[in-house]
């Protein structure tokens, strides 16, 4: 089984650019990814592309071939849709195809255009990741669903809004050096606690912003990297995916993410590591509570203790296991279809020593990226390791 090398990564700035089409954004990200990789476009054998709300935001389906065109490649192209885990599942498929020897060079990524919908429109578009009949028609929004999980967590394990606020503060702090982050602005706990409520107990600063952006990765086989003498020291050594019931109310636990646990166990086993080997992680913090559920599902914190991890400094930049050194979805932004690929890009740079926050994890050799769809009815986890 061939290792899968991250040969090049490209990200647009994440933020508020309602006038930019997703083809424009994705084209931009691929220019950077190809330049970073040194791989010629002609060598790409397929595009695996993640996008969630293209029909609603741009009246555009069938985005695979459109995005291959935008990237300047002639190759079969397929769109993956799994809500906010869309590019996570695309990456997982790419990893399997390269490992199996089917292809040596793949372009993987995703994009999302959201801000042109406005807050109400984007809220409606995001809500369709939930069960339309039994959740959306009862008024469930995306923040509302996570708020139900936050309240359930407080009831089951304790904790309060102030604990969550420390997560937002940490992720904003981490984003200060990330020039492509949507917010490069420090906030404090009071800012979070005093912000307008979105869906109690979650307020504006517990929530990731509505964002536009794209991410692209050039992935290659180990053999291709060696043959072409690529500078690609980081490999994806484990991939996992988990699933759960669609509606939150149908889950066994309202305050845990079994799909993410399943995905993590599978990815750890493939890579031959366990949670204690993880030096750094990018997890899906679409809301502050989501980071808590993610680090518990990944065994980076015991069940019921993830709530205090940021407050007590275990997951801050200088903590034991820094979480979301990029700023996370919270401060970096969350263009839905681009998120999973952007996390792999960030972890890869952190491990390669090319990230503005690499100094915080100077000896890191093992990183993890966790990407969740909806209220975690879908989840992917990838393990990245320095191999060269």
């Amino acid at each position: 089984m061939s290792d899968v090398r991250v040969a090049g990564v490209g990200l647009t700035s994440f933020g508020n650019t309602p006038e930019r089409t997703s083809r424009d954004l994705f084209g931009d990200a691929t220019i950077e990814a190809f330049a970073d990789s040194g791989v010629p476009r002609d060598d790409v054998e397929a595009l695996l592309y993640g996008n969630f709300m293209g029909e609603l935001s741009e009246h555009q389906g069938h985005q695979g071939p459109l995005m291959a065109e935008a990237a300047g490649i002639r190759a079969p192209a397929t769109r993956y849709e799994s809500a906010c885990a869309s590019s996570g599942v695309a990456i997982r498929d790419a990893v399997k195809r390269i490992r199996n020897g089917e292809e040596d060079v793949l372009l993987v990524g995703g994009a999302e255009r959201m801000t042109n919908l406005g807050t109400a429109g984007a809220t409606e578009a995001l809500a369709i990741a939930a069960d339309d009949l039994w959740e959306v028609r009862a008024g469930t929004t995306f923040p509302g669903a996570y708020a139900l999980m936050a309240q359930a967590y407080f009831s089951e394990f304790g904790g309060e809004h102030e604990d969550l606020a420390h997560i937002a503060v940490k992720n904003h702090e981490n984003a200060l050096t990330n020039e492509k982050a949507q917010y490069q602005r420090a906030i404090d706990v009071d800012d979070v606690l005093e912000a307008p409520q979105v869906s109690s107990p979650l307020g504006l600063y517990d929530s990731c912003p509505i964002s536009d952006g794209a991410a692209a990765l050039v992935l290659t086989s180990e053999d291709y990297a060696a043959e072409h003498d690529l500078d690609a020291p980081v490999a994806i050594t484990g991939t996992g995916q988990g699933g759960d019931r669609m509606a939150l109310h149908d889950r066994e636990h309202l305050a845990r993410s079994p799909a993410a646990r399943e995905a993590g166990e599978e990815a750890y086993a493939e890579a031959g590591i366990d949670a204690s080997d993880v030096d750094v992680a990018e997890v899906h913090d679409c809301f502050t509570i989501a980071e808590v559920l993610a680090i518990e599902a990944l065994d980076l914190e015991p069940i019921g203790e993830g709530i205090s991890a940021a407050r007590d400094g275990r997951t801050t930049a200088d903590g034991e296991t820094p979480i979301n050194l990029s700023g996370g979805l919270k401060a970096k932004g969350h263009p839905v279809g681009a998120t999973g690929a952007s996390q792999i890009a960030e972890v890869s740079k952190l491990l390669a020593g090319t990230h503005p926050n690499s100094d915080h994890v100077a000896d890191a050799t093992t990183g993890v990226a966790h990407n969740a769809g909806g209220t975690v009815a879908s989840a992917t986890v990838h393990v990245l390791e320095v191999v060269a």
Partner: protein
Amino acid sequence: MTDSENAVQDAGFDEWLDAAEDGDAYYLECPNEHGSLPPRRVCPDCGATDLEEVPLPATGEIETFTVTHVPTPAFEDDAPYATAIANFGPVRITGQVVDVDLEAIEPGLTVEIEISVSETTGERVLSFSPA
């Protein structure tokens, strides 16, 4: 979307709302006693295909809730409103909490099913009211 006579129905779901409005809410039960909500042809727990409509327990208990201030356009005029997940034993259900002060909602509150109407769209909404 409109609630007019001409609107296309969602088989299974609209019938369920009709029944709930008449006080006859039900859930589906498979031979292995797994509960689930319609429309459904197959038990999601065990794959059984002979599902039976069984009366929903009259009351449920709120497990978790939230008050939403930033709604989707379909609930623009309803906000702020409370949404909860209530446990009815064999199934849990998501619904809005009505006929109660938003401050008075808490986990453990006993509720019954009520079909209310969205102030924004006039559509029926699956709701809970204190029992």
